[in-house]
C-alpha cells in the first residue's frame, strides 16, 4: 500500500490530512473522519446559533471526496456544488479557512463573501446554482486542452442536478471536443426532498453514454474500492481519453440542509450500517482508529476555538 497518493497540502494540519509516511488506510480514514467531524461540528454550531445562512453536509458521502481527490495533482481543478465541504477539505485540508468562511469572518477563504456554498481556493471552486458549474468546469478543461498540459478538470454534481439542461449541453460539447473533464455524479438517491424516482426518468448511466461520454458506475461507500476506480478514471482523462463520468451510487445520511428530512427512517438506518467510516474503519486496528479519532478531535477543537476567536 503506497502513500504516494494524496500528499497533504503544505501548511495543512497533518492531524487532519495525514502524516508523512502514514499508511494509506489510516490516511484515508483520517481524512474521512476529518470531514465527518467537521460537518457534525458545523451542524452543532448552527444549532447553537453561532452560524447563519444555510449549509449542506455530505455525511455519508465522505468516501467519494477522499477517493477521487487523492488522485488529483497540482494544476488539476475541482468544481463543486452546494454540498462542497467534503470536496474542499479533501482537496485543501483547510478547516480553519472554511469554518471562518461559514462563520462569515474576514479570515474565511472568501472573506465571508461566499459562505458555505461559494468557495474558492487554488484549484478549487464551488457555486450554489445547480448545473451551471458543469460548463464552467468544461471551460477549464478546454483551457487545459488548449494549453497542452495534462491537467484534469473535475466537477461534482448530484443526481438531482441531472434535471438541469445545461448539463447535457455541456456533455455534448465536452464529447465533441474531447475535453479532459471528469464528471463525478454522486447519486445519493435524493435531491432535497425528492427521490430519484420522482426526479429522473430513464437510465442515469445511459444519459451520459448517449452523449458520447463513457460512464464508470459503482455502487459503494468503500473508499478503497472507489479510489481504485477513481484512479483509473482520472488517469484516463489525464491521458487524453476525453470526458468521462464516474457515477457513484451512495447515500446522504444527514438532512438536506439544516433540519429538513422527511425520508423514511428505516431507509436511513439501513444506510448507516454501510457508512464509509464504518466500512473502511474495519481495516484499521482499534487502537489506530482511536488515536486518529482523538487527533482529529483535538485538531478540530483547536480549529473551532481559533475560528471563534477570529474577528
Amino acid at each position, binding site marked *: 500500500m503506497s502513500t504516494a497518493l494524496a500528499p497533504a497540502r503544505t501548511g495543512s494540519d497533518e492531524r487532519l490530512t495525514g502524516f508523512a509516511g502514514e499508511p494509506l488506510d489510516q490516511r484515508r480514514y483520517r481524512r474521512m473522519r476529518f470531514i465527518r467531524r467537521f460537518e457534525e461540528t458545523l451542524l452543532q454550531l448552527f444549532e447553537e446559533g453561532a452560524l*447563519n*445562512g*444555510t449549509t449542506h453536509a455530505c455525511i455519508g458521502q465522505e468516501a467519494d471526496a477522499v477517493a477521487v481527490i487523492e488522485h488529483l495533482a497540482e494544476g488539476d481543478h475541482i468544481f463543486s456544488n452546494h454540498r462542497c465541504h467534503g470536496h474542499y477539505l479533501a482537496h485543501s485540508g483547510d478547516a480553519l479557512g472554511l469554518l471562518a*468562511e*461559514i462563520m*462569515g*469572518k474576514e479570515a*474565511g477563504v472568501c*472573506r*465571508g*463573501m*461566499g*459562505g*458555505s*456554498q*461559494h468557495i474558492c481556493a487554488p484549484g478549487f471552486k464551488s*457555486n*450554489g*446554482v*445547480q*448545473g451551471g458549474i458543469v460548463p464552467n468546469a468544461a471551460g477549464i478543461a478546454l483551457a487545459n486542452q488548449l494549453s497542452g498540459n495534462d491537467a484534469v478538470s473535475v466537477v461534482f454534481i448530484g443526481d*438531482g*442536478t*441531472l*434535471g*438541469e*439542461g445545461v448539463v447535457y449541453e455541456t456533455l455534448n460539447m465536452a464529447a465533441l471536443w474531447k475535453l479532459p473533464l471528469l464528471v463525478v455524479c454522486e447519486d445519493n438517491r435524493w*435531491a*432535497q*426532498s*425528492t427521490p430519484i424516482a*420522482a*426526479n*429522473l426518468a430513464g437510465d442515469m448511466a445511459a444519459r451520459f453514454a448517449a452523449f458520447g461520454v463513457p460512464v464508470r458506475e459503482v455502487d459503494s461507500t468503500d473508499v478503497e474500492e472507489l479510489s481504485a476506480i477513481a484512479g483509473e478514471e482520472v488517469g484516463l482523462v489525464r491521458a487524453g481519453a476525453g470526458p468521462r463520468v464516474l457515477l457513484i451510487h451512495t447515500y446522504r445520511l444527514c438532512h438536506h440542509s439544516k433540519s*429538513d428530512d*422527511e425520508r423514511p427512517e428505516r431507509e436511513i438506518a439501513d444506510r448507516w450500517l454501510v457508512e464509509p467510516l464504518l466500512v473502511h474503519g474495519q481495516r484499521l486496528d482499534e487502537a489506530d482508529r482511536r488515536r486518529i479519532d482523538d487527533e482529529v478531535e483535538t485538531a478540530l477543537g483547536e480549529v473551532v476555538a481559533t475560528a471563534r476567536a477570529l474577528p
Partner: protein
Amino acid sequence: MIFAKELGDTLRGALTDDPRVVLLGEDIADPYGGAFKVTRGLSTAFPQRVRTTPISEGAIAGVSAGLALAGYRPIAEVMFGDFLTLMFDQVVNHIAKYQAMYAGQATCPVVVRAATGGHRGYGPTHSQSLEKHFLGVPHLRVVAASLFHDPREVFSDFLGRDEPVLYVEHKLLYPQHLTLPVNGRIGDLLATSEGGPLPTVRLSAVPVEDCTVSVLAYGYQAMLAAKVIERLAMEEEIFAELLVPAQIAPMDWAPVERSVAVTGRLVTVEEGADGWSWGTEAASVISRRLFGRLRRPVDVVASEATVIPSSKTKEASILVGSAQIEAAIRAAAR
C-alpha cells in the same frame, strides 16, 4: 394570519375553486411542501394538479407556458428567485410573447411565484431580488407580495385575467402576520387602498396634507418602511406617506403622483441592486410629471450594486434595511 399560511390557503382555494389551476415546482409536494412550506398539504389534496418537478427551471416555465396556452392556469414556484435567470428565456421569448405575437389568438396566463430577497445569510446565489430585470418586459406584469395586500385578492386578480405575471415573495415575509387595512387604519397608521384588486396602499401617521415626504416601496422593504415612518412620526414628528403598490410593473403612477404633488418629495425603496432599478423608472416618471413642482430630486434607495455577501455583517452593510430607509427619509424631510 401568517403570510406563508395565508398564501398556502389562497393556493388551496384556487385549486378548489378552479379546476384549471395547476401547481408546479421543485420539492413542492408533501410531506416537504416546498422549501418555504407554502404548498404544504396541497399535493395530498390535489395529487394530479400539484406536482413536484425535477430541478429544471427552464422546463418548469416552459411546461407552464404550454398548460396556459391550453387553457389551464399554471402557478409555477421558483425555489429561490435567484434561479429566475434560468426561466428568463421562457418568460421573455415565450410566455410574455405569445398573446401579442399570435395577434391575440392565444393567451398564456402563467403565474410564476418566486421566493426572493436577502438578510438571511444565504449568500450570493440565494439572496437576490432579481425582479428588476423583469421590469419592462413587454406584456409581463410583475407583482410583489406585501403584508398590506391580501393574497386572496391578488390571486383572484391573477386567475381572473389572461396575462402572465411574476409574483415575487420576499422570504422574510413568510413568517410575518398580514396587516391589512381595517377601518382605514393599520395599527396606528392611517391606511387607504386605491385602485382595484391590486391597490396601492397608502399609509401615514397623519393625513397626507401634513406629510412632507412620500415614500414608495414594495414587498419586505415596504414592511420596514412602514415601521420607519411610524417611528419617525411618533418620535420625531417627521411625517411621511408610504405608498405600497402590489403591481410594480407596469406601474400605475397616479397615486404616487398625487402624493408627491402634495409632499413635493419622493424617496423610493427597494432591495434590488442599485442602477437601472425599479426606483429609477419612478424617478424618471415623477421628475417628468411633476417637473418644476418637486422640492428636491427623487431619491432612489437601493442596495449596493455588488454580490450579496454571505457574512451577516457584510450582507447588512450592502442590503437596504431600516437604517438606510430612515436616513433617506430624514434627508428628504430636511
